[in-house]
């Protein structure tokens, strides 16, 4: 009897797993296709915008014509040369430069070339920008700036995230206390962006107190020793990092605190309290556990947000990061760099979004992959 029963049961389980595998596979396939479509359209839209639908070509053509005419005028200033020959020289040089920049193929074709290359992560070469090491490869230009941005954004955003989640948990325990009220009262301060606090910090610590540098990443000339160099960078990091932190801190704490409070007023938490579980256990098992997906999502989005840098804060503090590189690239009409950075961001975002679906299922038993999507 028992063997029969077990024999009967086995195929049932198998079919259940195989159907869930099928469900997951179907869901994954659908998700991947959707994400790829999103990336393709998003990146193509960025290419169109970064070229202003081909308008940048006109700007660049005019620039080339102007500089070439001036160049030729200088070259032939002291030479007797027939106007036709000069005209031809100008035209030849213009053609050569337009060919170099690829302006001789129509924009529509080029835009699809950009897209195809971009999607294969072949970011190509910058038109005007040069990396510090002298390369025109977009990948190198971006990679060279990545450490500076990761240092600034990474340190500030990680501190911000963990400090605010930790403080919020503490505050949600002492709801209505003085500190709680203080955080609520201070949260409107986050209406101002980081660069705004940056200006005040520069004013106080650099201009008046003269204890920290106005900007930059390292003194010039930089210190010789590695330790000296690191300390010097750290000194330059304090102001920009703290303005990034301070600008968002109170609102972030407030948000997390409210979020935790909503979960800690659930019935099962009350039940746990009534059972007499200690506060730590309640916090870990009944409050943190169900809020974990949200915490993870926020953390993941924070991590990919590091890639974009903080354009304006980096500009105010003269921090040589990615944000400022993009800003400079726009100033040079260097679309390859702009599009390159967007493509990487799009891939990072899509990959994270895709991964998060599975993370949810892992940390939250109530969520089924591919379930509840319809």
């Amino acid at each position, binding site marked *: 009897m028992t063997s029969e029963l077990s024999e009967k049961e086995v195929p049932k389980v198998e079919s259940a797993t195989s159907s869930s595998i099928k469900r997951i596979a179907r869901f994954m396939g659908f998700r991947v296709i*959707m994400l790829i*479509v*999103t*990336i393709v*359209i*998003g*990146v193509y*839209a*960025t290419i169109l*915008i*970064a070229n*202003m639908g081909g*308008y*940048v070509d006109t*700007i660049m053509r005019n620039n080339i014509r102007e500089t070439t005419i001036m160049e030729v005028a200088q070259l032939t200033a002291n030479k007797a040369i027939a106007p036709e020959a000069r005209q031809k020289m100008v035209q030849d040089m213009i053609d050569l430069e337009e060919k170099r920049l690829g302006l001789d193929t129509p924009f529509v074709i080029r835009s699809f070339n950009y897209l195809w290359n971009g999607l294969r992560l072949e970011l190509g070469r910058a038109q005007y920008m040069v990396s510090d090491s002298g390369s025109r490869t977009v990948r190198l230009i971006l990679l060279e700036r990545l450490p500076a941005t990761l240092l600034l954004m990474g340190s500030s955003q990680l501190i911000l995230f963990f400090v605010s989640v930790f403080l919020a948990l503490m505050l949600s325990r002492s*709801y209505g206390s003085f500190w709680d009220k203080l955080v*609520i*009262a201070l*949260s*409107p*301060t*986050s*209406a*101002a*962006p980081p*660069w*705004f606090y940056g*200006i*005040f910090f*520069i*004013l106080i610590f*650099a*201009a008046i107190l003269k204890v920290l540098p*106005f900007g930059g990443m390292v003194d010039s000339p930089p210190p010789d020793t590695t330790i000296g160099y690191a300390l010097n960078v750290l000194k330059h990091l304090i102001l920009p990092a703290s303005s990034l932190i301070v600008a968002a801190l109170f609102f972030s704490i407030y948000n997390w605190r*409210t979020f935790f*409070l*909503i979960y800690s007023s659930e019935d099962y938490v009350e039940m746990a309290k009534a059972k007499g579980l200690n506060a730590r256990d309640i916090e870990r098992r009944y409050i943190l556990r169900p809020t974990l997906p949200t915490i993870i999502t926020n953390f993941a989005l924070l991590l990919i947000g590091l890639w*974009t840098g903080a*354009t*304006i804060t980096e*500009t*105010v503090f003269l921090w040589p990061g990615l944000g400022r590189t*993009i*800003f400079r690239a*726009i*100033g040079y*009409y260097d679309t390859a760099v*702009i599009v390159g*950075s*967007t493509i990487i*961001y*799009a891939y990072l*975002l*899509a990959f994270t979004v895709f991964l998060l679906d599975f993370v949810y299922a892992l940390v939250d038993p109530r969520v089924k992959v591919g379930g509840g999507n319809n």
Partner: protein
Amino acid sequence: MNSLKNALREIKRYPSAIIGFIIVMMLVALAIFAMIKIPYQEAIRLWRGGEEVWYMNPKNAPPVWYNWFSKDKLPESFVVKAGVDEGFTKVVTTKPDGSSTIDFEYNFTFDYDVFPPEVFLYFNTIFDQRQPFASVSMLTPDGTEIMIGDFGIPTKYTYRFSQDDRFITRINRIMGREMINPVEGIFAVPQSDPSVPLKGDYKLIIKGVTFEEGSDIDAEFVFHGRVAGWFGTDHNRRDLSVAMLWGAPIALAFGLLAALGTSLLSMIIAAIGAWHGGWLDELIQRITEINLVLPFLAILIMVGTFYSRSIWIILGVTIALSIFTGAIKTDRAIFLQVKESTYIEAARAYGANDFRIIFRYLIPRIIPLLIPTLVQAVPAYVFLEASLAVLGLGDPVLPTWGKVINDAETFGALYKGMYYWILQPAVLLMFTGLGFAMLGFALDRIFNPRLRGM
């Protein structure tokens, strides 16, 4: 109506809401005051006019209230026009042969501890053949009369004291040394080194002579002090009060229009999507996801660099990029709930069309939730405009707070200690941000049932 009353009663319980409300109202008052005091065209003229408009002001002078806090009193700038401003008298005596003498006198008090950087006279004359002539002198408090200069006056003429060689020689003799700033010599105790200010009443005397009938002289006395106006001046001698006052209506207009446009449009689109369902809903969702990939700030910078820095274009692009964001998802979730309500079913039963259901039944339901979001969104847009200006992409014509910060940054105001230049617009921006944020926060806690009592 009743619920509105209840909401108002609730608002009174939140001191931050009241403070925020007062700040917002003060900003609105400031904006209205600015628009009435300095009409738009006048503001643009004052801000973009060029040297002709700005000559009256000294360069980079802090505001007058600087004197309240500093031990050494800095001289205040002033400009007086003969015959127009009180105290600057003009007496014309005509002789039978058509020539006339025109005597100008102006009494002023100098009791400051620092010397003015520059003093000059601005003449406007009418004549046919022969230029009028003027001799200028200054009567100091100790009774001596310092001869400043005599010269013929063309139709439009600016006489700068410090650029007259004969005046410099005379002053150097009085002071007994080479003066770096000759104007200092007029207001200093003779022979003092370093110069000690001679405080007291001064009298400017201009003796003018014209040689033709109908010929006339008009004089303007421009005294460049070390402080000027209530807001100081910038590197272009522009009076910052224009930008500080006009910054308010521009910031409010940009912030409110962007917040209103974004939240209204995303609400309507969310409502249509939720009501219609199917492919339309799906399309809206997909657009939102694509929009997430687009680099928002980079696109704004690109539009500013490649296309136009006009504030209205930037506003349009900002709204367009902000419609399909998280807000649309939140709104959609609420609409999907409301859609199932019985009163919607009733409306459908009596044959209400889609348009009517969306705009009369669905949307009004979430307006209470919309208000706090809208108010809270304002500071973000106000600061966005300022951020773009700080990157050098401010509107080329309008005087805004962000552009003043950008100018100050570019000219190293913080390095050079000209803190007023950066602090004034920053404080105004901060007030705007705080006012709306505090009000919006309180409104959120009142209207959002999830947050009630938290």
